[in-house]
């Protein structure tokens, strides 16, 4: 997701002055205030933030609150299809959206490593501001710390988010029932592969962009239309397989999916073949699985497609608990379990 900004031209901290983050930028003195006032506050313009108080004081919205937090540590910080800034905003918004909440406010905590290029910080901060604006959320409070060189990985961002859950909305694995249908919002595996492709040491030129995107408009459209959404799960770390396993385990049911129905791009499939990865376990940042009653499937698909998720489709259904939480009918017609991954997928030898 490109922000379309000319970063270098508009960085409010003159590069010549401090080309890199120094320990003093986290020291609480003039330089830190300079960083906050000139850079952060030039793009994060929530009224609460501009009062420069110790915290944000907010009016409670109607309904109940959803509250989540997510820390973002990614290498490389700029990747095809996004960067750590947009990721830190959409990651938290998407967690709220999966609770059926309308995202409202975010906090942003930066941990910067001494020596981190100021220009890169500006790109990240600008990207966060753009993402927040696209998702109509406000970054209302924040914090910046600097750690010694060698004690961080350039930049870490933690965001926490608060959203409002409309009355009557109850979404979670406890509502999953046998007979429900599982829908996926689009093709899987692009984020993980886009990161692998540009990671140091990988000479694979795979034309894959991350699927990084906000999901709140999709969940809102489903709920606004009055669909009885039983559960939603964004398919981030651990991919589709982990998301389905978590939902199945928490609902004491078995989710059965059909391999041929799962949308995966050719490039992603090819990269997975080379690396020995299973695309079911590869991370996404803009995809979710949706569980709802059979009689609402067509409406749900129509809504998702109308909102731009052209590849949204049905991939399986929920059955009473069977031999394993997740079972998949393979391309050649037999069934196998789809297990939770024990650790990270490791590229194989041959």
């Amino acid at each position, binding site marked *: 997701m490109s922000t379309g900004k000319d970063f270098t031209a508009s960085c409010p901290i003159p590069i010549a002055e401090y080309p890199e983050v120094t320990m003093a930028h986290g020291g609480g003195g003039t330089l830190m205030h300079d960083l906050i006032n000139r850079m952060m506050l030039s793009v994060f313009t929530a009224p609460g933030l501009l009062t420069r108080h110790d915290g944000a004081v907010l009016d409670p919205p109607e309904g109940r609150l959803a509250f989540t937090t997510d820390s973002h540590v990614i290498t490389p910080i700029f990747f095809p299809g996004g960067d750590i800034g947009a990721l830190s905003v959409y990651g938290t918004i998407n967690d709220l959206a999966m609770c059926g909440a309308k995202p409202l406010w975010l906090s942003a905590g930066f941990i910067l490593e001494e020596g981190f290029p100021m220009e890169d910080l500006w790109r990240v901060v600008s990207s966060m501001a753009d993402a927040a604006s696209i998702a109509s959320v406000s970054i209302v409070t924040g914090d910046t710390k600097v750690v010694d060189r060698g004690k961080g990985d350039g930049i870490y961002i933690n965001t926490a988010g608060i959203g409002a859950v409309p009355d009557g909305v109850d979404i979670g694995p406890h509502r999953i029932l046998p007979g429900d249908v599982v829908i996926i919002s689009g093709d899987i595996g692009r984020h993980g592969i886009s990161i692998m492709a540009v990671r140091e*040491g*990988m*000479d694979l030129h795979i034309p894959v962009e991350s699927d990084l995107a906000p999901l709140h408009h999709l969940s809102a459209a489903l709920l606004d239309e009055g669909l009885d959404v039983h559960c939603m799960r964004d398919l981030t770390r651990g991919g589709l397989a982990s998301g389905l396993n978590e939902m199945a385990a928490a609902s004491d049911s078995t989710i059965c999916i059909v391999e041929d129905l799962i949308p995966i791009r*050719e490039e992603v*499939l*090819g990269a997975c*073949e080379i*690396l*020995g990865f299973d695309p079911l376990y590869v991370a996404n940042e803009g995809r979710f699985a949706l569980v709802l009653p059979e009689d609402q499937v067509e409406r749900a698909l129509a809504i998702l497609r109308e909102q731009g998720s052209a590849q949204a489709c049905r991939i399986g259904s929920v059955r009473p608990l069977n*031999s*394993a*939480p997740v079972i998949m009918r*393979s*391309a*050649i*017609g*037999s*069934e*196998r*379990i789809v*297990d939770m991954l*024990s*650790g990270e997928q*490791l*590229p*194989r*030898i*041959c």
Partner: protein
Amino acid sequence: MKYVSEYRNREAAERYVEELHKITTRNWNIMEVCGGQTHSILKYGIDRLIPDAVELIHGPGCPVCVTPVGLIDKAISIASDDSVIFCSFGDMMRVPGSQRDLLSVKAAGGDVRMVYSPLDAVRIANENPEREVVFFAVGFETTAPVTAAAVLRADALGLSNFSMLAAHVLVPPAIEAVLSSPGCRIQGFLAAGHVCSVMGYTEYEPLAEKYKVPIVVTGFEPLDILEGLHMCVTQLEKGTYRVENQYHRSVTRGGNQDAVALINRVFRPSDRKWRGIGEIPGSGLEFTEDYSSFDASVRFGVEEMSVEEPSECISGLVLTGERKPDQCPAFGEACTPQHPLGAPMVSTEGACAAYFRYRRTT
């Protein structure tokens, strides 16, 4: 995906399965040699589609799995040296040595890096002249040419800070070890297609003749395996024992002579211990005199340690096909991918990992 999805076609698979049912008149035990084939079989449930009379026995074809504990301990000892950047393929990182694995060395501050090619390790050595860079060369004949090419590249660059812990293994001696073991009940083999892409399959002809077993060089996709099984069962039913090639799109009888020449320039066969199996004559590769300066064992003076395998782990029996992974008392209990007792539970090619991943029931 071209060249892949054609080989996962359901209708074609059903036709092979139907044919197999038609031609099979009695019980046959067939070993698929390669761990990649084992994973395909379990992943696609091929063993559940074919006749019950055809039993698939999973072979020792997982290079990570057969690397002895003593050699992994040696790797861990070298990787723990502060002067060393230790480079390894990903699936070697979690294989347990006698005390710990390479990931634990990394966590404790060792500079252990996951690489995708031995040539990456050479690049790292070139970029870090002040550090010793060691590559853990694990694999069958398939990856041996690239390993050899990396040595030649390092030699051409004049790198004195690059070395390798050579842990390559060769398939034909292992097949012979399985066939000559007392009580061997294997009647036919699916040979590993990728190994034969490099080596060809002339080496298998004397084995088929001597032990009167059909050997079918087979690929890794579901249709490859079904076709390989069909060819093997056809021979068994007829009582013939030839070497046949199912994997035409990649393998020729003579193999890739350039690749073989690379291997032979840098390495020569040596006796080699296999984890869980024991020593197999002529089943490993060691450096030839000309390139012995690249031998990390010599450079770091680390002796191979003799280490006991965990007594609960029956990986030796699994690797020789005498037991199925789920017949091990530790399977899924004391031994899981989180806490592996043996390498077959770690590697993406290990039979125990395949059973755990695709077959374990709750």
